[in-house]
């Protein structure tokens, strides 16, 4: 706390020294749509001072009084210059127009020199153009799938949206949608992410040198900002694909004052997969995403945004059976004994699974002065999962009737209410100070079950119900932060930040002091050396036992027994942009994780969730790696080649009960990873996109042989050795001998995805046909490996065999898009 006060005094002293200067501030927007431009450059050609717009398109630059020439530029837009004599604080709002000439002949990635210009290592702006030109599964262009192709990011099972950054776990990524954390980021067990590209304006990805304003996860931050909506005219797009359809519409409500943007996506997965399902099953799966944003500009100083994300997945599986007959007593026979008749029994049973995200947020931008910009956000986040199963049986015979109905429900919910206040303070051209406070109220309602029983026998009703409620866990998370992007001299920049998080649960408080330091040294304008240190902490964890994303995966807060996880990361890199349109970078990192969680040996989340904190142990992890990136940002061909060399492992005390205290590799410890992404613009009508990924194998825990387990009941009962061995039938059949965790490295995976798009300008719209191919050459990549010791008829195999399961073969798909 003492350090924070010292830092605040330092900032105040800087502002006091800027009294003979004046400030130029304003918004930079797109001329056609009035959409704010994030990251646009403002540069004074006289003094060589510059700044960039923040995430709301606002800029502020303080200069000496006198004549100035300010240049406003953003890649893909025509630069503008303003010459003026500065004698007082001035507001200059700039409208940049798109560079149409450039667009006709070239594709631009809109991130030229990004690596050289930003102060921190490991940060990346991912423009929507790139996302839209990255081919992926079933033609679903996707934010997360694009991230998976960047260096340092590993994907989980091929095709899924799970991602693992620099050796961190899948729950260590902070995914923010307009500033609100999203807990469940995927649909269909991870194969689609919840972000529809049409709604996204900009994605910023951090894997090291985390700005102090981001807290709560240890491995990465994905900051997704959605479109504000066109202030000038209504336009949109409509796309029909193999499994999903999407629509996007944006436009003014009150011209130049109020605008909206709405995007929606839904699926017809069950209709497409119906031929593959059994006839007696009524299978249904459906999801939707809805992004809505309304913004109103009160004045140049005040702007209000309301955004809403709502997503829902629904699955059901119903069966009907009328083949069974039951025998019921009806009257008496000649010997005065009950007479039995056979009556057909109608039986229905099924399962339903629903899970949903509901995230509304309200933001208010206020310009207090030309140097002080404030953003206040209030958001609410509700994740809910409901699983139910039922069975129903009935019969009717003469005056006899029976109706029985059993239903069981399982619910799990998380509610977050957040208030965030962020301030951007620009006391001088050499300092951009950000500070603020972030408060989150968590309500974890882990598990609630309900059951309903209806019994109607010959019109006599005996209905009952029972309910069990999990104990909710309330937590308060308060973060305060301050950071300064300090331009020491022309060639040296620092980003100094500090954050303090207080996590309070019941009567237990955890405080975490998290310093962040980055420096950039640019001896030449095309060469930069960077280094950073950051500490992150995490107070919530995701309980899961499967490598795939399940709706039942449970987010839980730390407890009085489980301390917050922390990550200390040192990162450094070299960035080179001498060649026009090319960017080269090399980054290295060393990350130390503490209090990282693993299930104790023999424990698993499947069914154990009640007292989960007893089932896990805290240990340490170390990740290190080198990341190489060559990127072409302009021209007919754009894209990148990324190579990652990495190593990540975990170590726990012997007493913790994890892997006998031996070090073991992290599940997604893949030594080599190559990603090649390319977009070719053949001509105005045709473009081709492709990506190729290569991974050395991830780790898996496999059974190597069989061993004897003895229970308190003795050995005979527990020897899972098969029928007749010790005289008992060993129905468990799987007393695996696993000498160490992640004892097997899966074979390499490689996947080629390609897509071709045909553009045609129609009278009122543009039509785009896209054909894409996932896993073009049908590589049999391993998704799972397991020991098969029983054949398909349940007979024990004399020689158990290892089986590899490949989930996703070659999958072609198409999308037809109309832009109007």
């Amino acid at each position, binding site marked *: 706390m003492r350090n924070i006060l010292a830092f605040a005094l330092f900032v105040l002293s800087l502002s006091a020294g800027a009294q003979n200067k004046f400030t130029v501030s304003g918004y930079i927007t797109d001329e056609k749509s009035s959409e704010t431009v994030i990251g646009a450059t403002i540069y004074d050609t006289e003094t060589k001072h510059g700044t960039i717009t923040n995430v709301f398109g606002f800029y502020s630059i303080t200069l000496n009084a006198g004549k100035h020439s300010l240049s406003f530029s953003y890649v893909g837009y025509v630069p503008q210059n303003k010459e003026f004599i500065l004698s007082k604080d001035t507001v200059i709002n700039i409208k940049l127009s798109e560079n149409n000439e450039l667009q006709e002949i070239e594709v631009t990635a809109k991130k030229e020199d990004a690596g050289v210009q930003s102060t921190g290592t490991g940060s990346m702006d991912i423009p929507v153009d790139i996302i839209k030109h990255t081919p992926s599964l079933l033609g679903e262009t996707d934010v997360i799938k694009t991230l998976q192709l960047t260096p340092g990011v590993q994907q989980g099972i091929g095709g899924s949206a799970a991602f693992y950054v620099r050796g961190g776990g899948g729950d260590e990524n902070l995914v923010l949608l307009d500033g609100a954390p999203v807990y469940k980021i995927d649909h269909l067990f991870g194969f689609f992410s919840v972000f529809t590209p049409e709604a996204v304006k900009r994605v910023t990805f951090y894997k090291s040198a985390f700005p102090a304003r981001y807290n709560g996860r240890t491995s990465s931050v994905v900051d997704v900002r959605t479109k504000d909506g066109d202030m000038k005219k209504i336009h949109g797009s409509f796309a029909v694909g193999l499994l999903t359809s999407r629509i996007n519409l944006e436009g003014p409500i009150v011209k130049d004052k109020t605008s909206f943007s709405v995007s929606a996506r839904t699926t017809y997965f069950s209709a497409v997969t119906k031929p593959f*399902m059994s006839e007696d099953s009524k299978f249904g799966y459906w999801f939707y995403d809805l992004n809505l944003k309304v913004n109103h500009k009160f004045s140049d100083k005040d702007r209000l945004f309301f955004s809403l994300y709502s997503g829902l997945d629904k699955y059901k599986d119903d069966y009907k059976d009328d083949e069974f007959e039951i025998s019921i007593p009806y009257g008496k026979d000649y010997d005065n004994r009950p007479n039995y008749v056979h009556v057909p029994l109608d039986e229905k049973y099924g399962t339903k699974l629903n899970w949903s995200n509901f995230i509304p947020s309200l933001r208010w931008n206020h310009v207090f002065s030309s140097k002080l910009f404030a953003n206040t956000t209030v958001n609410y986040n509700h994740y809910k999962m409901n699983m139910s199963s039922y069975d129903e049986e009935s019969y009717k015979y003469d005056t006899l009737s029976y109706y029985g109905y059993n239903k069981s429900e399982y619910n799990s919910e998380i509610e977050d209410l957040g208030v965030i206040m962020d301030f951007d303070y620009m006391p001088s051209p050499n300092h951009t100070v950000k500070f603020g406070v972030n408060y989150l109220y968590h309500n974890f309602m882990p598990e609630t*079950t309900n059951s309903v029983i209806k019994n109607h026998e010959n019109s006599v009703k005996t209905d009952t119900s029972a309910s069990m409620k999990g104990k909710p866990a309330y937590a308060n998370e308060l973060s305060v932060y301050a950071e300064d992007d300090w331009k020491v001299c022309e060639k040296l920049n620092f980003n100094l930040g500090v954050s303090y998080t207080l996590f309070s649960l019941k009567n237990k408080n955890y405080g975490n002091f998290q310093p962040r330091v980055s420096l950039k040294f640019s001896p030449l304008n095309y060469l930069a050396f960077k280094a950073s240190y950051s500490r992150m902490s995490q107070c919530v964890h995701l309980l899961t*036992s499967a490598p795939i994303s*399940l709706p039942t995966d449970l987010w839980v807060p730390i407890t009085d027994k489980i301390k917050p996880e922390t990550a200390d990361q040192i990162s450094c890199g070299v960035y080179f942009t001498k060649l026009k349109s090319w960017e080269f970078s090399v980054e290295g990192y060393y990350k130390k994780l503490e209090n990282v969680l693993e299930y104790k040996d*023999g*424990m698993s989340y499947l*069914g154990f969730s009640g007292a989960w904190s007893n089932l896990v142990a805290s240990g340490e992890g170390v990740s290190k790696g080198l990341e190489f990136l060559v990127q072409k940002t302009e021209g007919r061909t754009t894209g990148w080649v990324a190579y990652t060399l990495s190593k990540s492992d975990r170590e726990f005390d012997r007493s913790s009960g994890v892997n006998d205290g031996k070090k073991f590799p992290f599940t997604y410890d893949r030594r080599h990873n190559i990603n090649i992404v390319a977009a070719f613009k053949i001509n105005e009508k045709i473009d081709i996109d492709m990506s190729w990924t290569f991974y050395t194998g991830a780790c898996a825990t496999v059974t190597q042989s069989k061993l004897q387990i003895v229970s308190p009941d003795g050995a005979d009962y527990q020897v899972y050795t098969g029928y007749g061995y010790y005289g008992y039938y060993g129905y468990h059949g799987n007393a695996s001998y696993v000498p160490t965790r992640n004892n097997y490295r899966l074979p390499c995976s490689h996947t080629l995805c390609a897509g071709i798009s045909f553009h045609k300008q129609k009278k009122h719209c543009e039509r785009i046909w896209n054909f894409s191919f996932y896993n073009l050459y049908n590589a049999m990549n391993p998704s799972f490996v397991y020991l098969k010791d029983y054949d398909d008829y349940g007979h024990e195999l004399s020689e158990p065999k290892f089986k590899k399961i490949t989930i996703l073969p070659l999958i072609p798909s198409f999308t037809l898009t109309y832009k109007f």
Partner: protein
Amino acid sequence: MKKCILFFAALVSVFMSCREDIELKMDDTTGVLCVNGFLYADCDTNVLYITETGISRPVPVTNAEVKMYVNGVLKEEVSTSDNSGHYLLKEKFSPNDVVRIDVTSNSRHVWREATVPECPKDFSVEITPAPEKKYYDSYIEDYTTDNMYKIEVSFSDVSSGKNYYRLLVDKTSSVTSYDYHHDYYYADTVYIDGVEYISHKDTAYYEMKTHHGYNERLYIGEAPSLADEEMNATSEFTDGIYNYYKVFNNSRFAGGKCNLRVYDIVHFDYGNSFPPETKKVNSEKDIERLPVYSYTQYVGIESIDEETYYFIKALNGYESGSFDYQELTGAIKMRRNVEGGSGNIVFVSRDVKKIVLYDNYKPAPVFGEEEDDDDYSDDYYYNY
């Protein structure tokens, strides 16, 4: 959860392109010496189970040499076993002793050294017929507790630190009946594992298991909170873990007195109920042929260490089918506490009470014609 995984498995089957055999290039892990056993303090005979890992099943080791040291003194050497690799230890050890077991076989050497836990104190048991209450079984069908005992257990924690216990509820029962059809007497004895419930106030929830695969869970009164530790009160729907082996820790009563209320089902084979008080007979000969009931309940508290506690919890997971999805979750690594090989040698201190509830009990004969009643078992043997 299982249903969720099954759904994913269905999706996998839609998208799956192939399953194929692969060669695993890894070290040969067969032949790892594996020593297991629950060794009880002050017990006349303890059994060590010695095997080695095998490709498809463990292989008994019959040429091992076992040495047992108590407080650093060699107490016993054993080198003979039966064909199943069972080695009998006849020397006793006591609570708080430091016991070391060394096993060698074909130049392999494994060992385990630990302090024997302290025995639970002030252990007492009281058994009474349970009051009749309605409950739901695992299929959420309602039943009545008309055949149950209430077993009230009390003991003192061995210290105020972290301590771990296991509840033992075993019984033997026998019914000696006359087979009218074949004209002979026969005795049927069943050994049944107990029913488990760890009580907190009057809330009741428990599980039962028998050798016949008869699994039930029971609610009486208010249902417990899911978040309560050690209750294992997850419902059928979430495919919770049954506490088959009845382990618990002292988090609720550290340093104090623990009161458990356990309900156990009366289980005479073919008749899940108390023996009848009377039985109708037609002749003097029938009186001689009345069934004879014997029923002995064993109730005990075992003191175990933390490693054993988690090992047994993992066994609960095995029993509950939690590890049945290893195709998706990967193989589960089990705990081991022996050094140099694998297996678990567990030292236990326990106090067990034997309570004879029926000792050659015969129902009182009542002359009159036999009626159809609920005592199906007797009818079965009398008439067929």
